[in-house]
């Protein structure tokens, strides 16, 4: 039992750190510092630099551009990215769809879709949830019926509504769960379709979330014609793909490295901010107890993640402890934003989203946007299978209840 990194691991850490320092776009860094809304091009700019380096899709099979890194190296990479405050690579294509394609897709589908995902050329969105199908995802009702087109080819005619579709406003393509057989038990009648978002009949409507941001959308599908060859895996067996995808969502979901960085920022902030007695807020007994509690919980989560990682590295696979990563990780992210908002005091209130950037600062820079982060981060215990659903899953699969 030890926590030693091998000389190769340490050399890799140096390489990763050096690469980020040399290659991360300064313009992007400046925009992040100003908390500006990032454009599609902003998101892709870092992705494409990584793709050129061959590091955009570390977990993929090597033949499609995976790096062949050990779990420890992947962990180091995620740590270094968090330390450097890089923007994350969006998960929809690289982390969520691609594993479904390289696991269940045909050779033709792999060749057609994987390079665009890897190279940051095609933006993907996820069409899973519906107004009537959230935690009970299998009850979805978006209907796909087989038709023969005028060109003699086979199509699905898709009708329905998807919702909470993250960043669909930028999406070129989407992967959708649709009902191809409504007359069997819900899980057995679902198929996995790839839909070009420019297809006639696709409408994206923004949903503004409580912090004022536009991140998620409704997607309306109105007689959308989708070629049959855009279906991944067999008809009516899309649930198999969906379940596999949820497993891929787990790795890195704890967000330990980013939370550690967030905690550092909180401590800096609470050293500058003053408590009621005029001393640094971090000296206030009540406040610092909350910070200490959070720090200790994060340490426990970090070691739980390291145990998972060590299990993966040894080839034994993650143990039962990995099942708690999503719940604990998101709880900690939420508590962090709570404390940051508390620390900001009065200057949590100003709402500057619609103000011009040159209007002049109000309050300290570090307080800008902290209320928005707090409100926005409430989503983390809801998405990816709500934390209540996670408890159902642990009860069933880990405790055997």
């Amino acid at each position, binding site marked *: *039992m*030890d*926590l*030693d*990194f091998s000389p190769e691991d340490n050399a890799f850490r140096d390489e990763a750190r050096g690469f980020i320092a040399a290659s991360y776009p300064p313009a992007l860094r400046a925009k992040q510092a100003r908390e500006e809304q990032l454009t599609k091009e902003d998101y892709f700019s870092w992705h494409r630099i990584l793709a050129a380096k061959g590091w955009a899709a570390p977990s993929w099979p090597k033949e499609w551009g995976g790096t062949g890194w050990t779990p*420890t190296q992947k962990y180091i990479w995620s740590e270094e990215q968090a330390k450097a405050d890089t923007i994350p690579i969006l998960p929809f294509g690289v982390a969520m769809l691609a594993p479904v394609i390289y696991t269940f897709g045909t050779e033709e589908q792999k060749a057609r879709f994987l390079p665009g995902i890897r190279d940051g050329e095609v933006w993907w969105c996820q069409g899973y949830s519906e107004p009537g199908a959230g935690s009970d995802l299998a009850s979805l009702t978006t209907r796909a019926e087989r038709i023969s087109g005028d060109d003699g080819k086979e199509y699905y005619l898709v009708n329905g509504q998807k919702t909470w579709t993250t960043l669909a406003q930028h999406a070129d393509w989407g992967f959708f769960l649709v009902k191809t057989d409504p007359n069997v038990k819900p899980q057995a009648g679902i198929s996995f379709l790839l839909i070009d978002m420019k297809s006639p009949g696709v409408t994206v409507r923004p949903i503004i979330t409580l912090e004022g941001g536009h991140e998620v959308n409704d997607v309306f599908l109105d007689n959308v014609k989708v070629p049959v060859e855009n279906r991944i895996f067999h008809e009516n067996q899309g649930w198999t793909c969906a379940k596999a995808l949820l497993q891929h969502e787990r790795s890195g979901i704890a967000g330990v490295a980013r939370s550690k960085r967030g905690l550092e920022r909180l*401590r800096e902030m609470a*050293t500058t901010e003053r408590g009621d007695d005029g001393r*640094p807020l*971090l*000296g206030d007994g009540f406040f*610092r*107890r909350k*910070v*200490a*509690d959070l*720090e*200790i*919980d994060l*340490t*426990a*989560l*970090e*070691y*739980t993640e*390291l*145990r998972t*990682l*060590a*299990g993966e*590295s*040894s080839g034994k696979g993650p143990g*039962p*402890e990995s099942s*708690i990563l999503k*719940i*604990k990780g998101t709880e900690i992210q939420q508590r962090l934003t709570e404390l940051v908002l508390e620390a900001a005091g009065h200057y949590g209130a100003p709402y500057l989203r619609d103000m011009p950037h040159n209007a002049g600062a109000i309050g300290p820079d570090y307080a800008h946007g902290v209320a928005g982060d707090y409100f926005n981060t409430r989503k983390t215990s809801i998405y990816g299978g709500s934390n*209540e659903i996670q*408890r*159902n899953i*642990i*009860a069933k699969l*880990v*405790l*055997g*209840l």
Partner: protein
Amino acid sequence: MDFSFTQEQSMLRDSLASYLADHYSFEKRRAAMATADGWRPAVWKAFAEDLGILGAAFPEDVGGLGGGAVETLVVMEEFGKALVVEPYLETVVIGGAFLRHGAPAGAADLIGQIVEGKAILAFAHAEAQGRYALNDLKTTARRQGAGFVLNGRKAVVVGAPWANHLIVTARTGGAQRDADGVSVFLVDKAAKGVVSRDYPTVDGRRASEILFEDVAVGAEALIGPEGGGLPLIEQVVDEAIAALCAEACGVLRRLHEGTVEYTRQRKQFGQPISAFQVLQHRMVDMFMQLEQAVSMTYMAHIKLGDAPAERAKAISAAKVQIGRACRFVGQNAIQLHGGMGMTDEMAIGHYFKRATMIEGQFGSVDHHLARYEALSFDAAA
């Protein structure tokens, strides 16, 4: 990076678990607790002679098996699962650590006796007024000739009724709460002037209030530097806490498993109560506390060799999580057992009692949060 156990460590675990399954059932434990002595010297002898665990964590040159903190972790976790009351923590972990780190004259000899199962040690550090502060001492050791004379009173010295040696903290200088002036002594339990009042503890151990009345010891009784013993005490107590965390993991596992098992058997409203979502979620929350406690226990053992401030911070962080897990898992285990959880006849309540005592042993959650804060914030500021 590695969180696995070596083949030797796994064999140690298996042989100990198998011995405890045969010789340390809940009923046998209960019967031993009801005797006048309250423990089983025969079990201790088997630990020494059949299993060799009393020497598992000592270096080979003093008769040990050359293991270290991880061997202690393995032993303590199994002891937690079986609620072992014998004084391994006091004798091997704490006594052994004072002898190894403090290296007084005759240390090798006494370690040899520990490994053979002949020497039993207890740690007399707490005082009624001092709460968890290791430096709050009214007990004094006054120079007399080449040696010292001890006077004072020690509180709740666990395992003392079974011990033949006491490790005693006392002031050789300074004021009651000073960091300087603290010294450590090895005292023969049978020495003239050692008066003890023995009693059972709520978790099935035995302890003593011990009065030292002009107890004369030689210069060789001093462990570590005269007046500069506090860093040594802190190091040993940190090692004891790491071991205690491992014991807690064993206790918590049994509390959790026992609860899952019970809710599957207990039927109400025509179905096993484990089918109720509200209870499932509670048991998942218990499971999360347990897993986080296991993670922190590993962390604590990995960091035991770090510089004192880093080590202390890690140990306090771990003890906070362990203390919280003991309370949450323990209380909910009783709650989910319903009325049966309230009975003396079921093992679950006895695990709860041990978990509750571990919460406070060597410092409560509040104590360790404060210690963590001082190390994490004040040092940085």
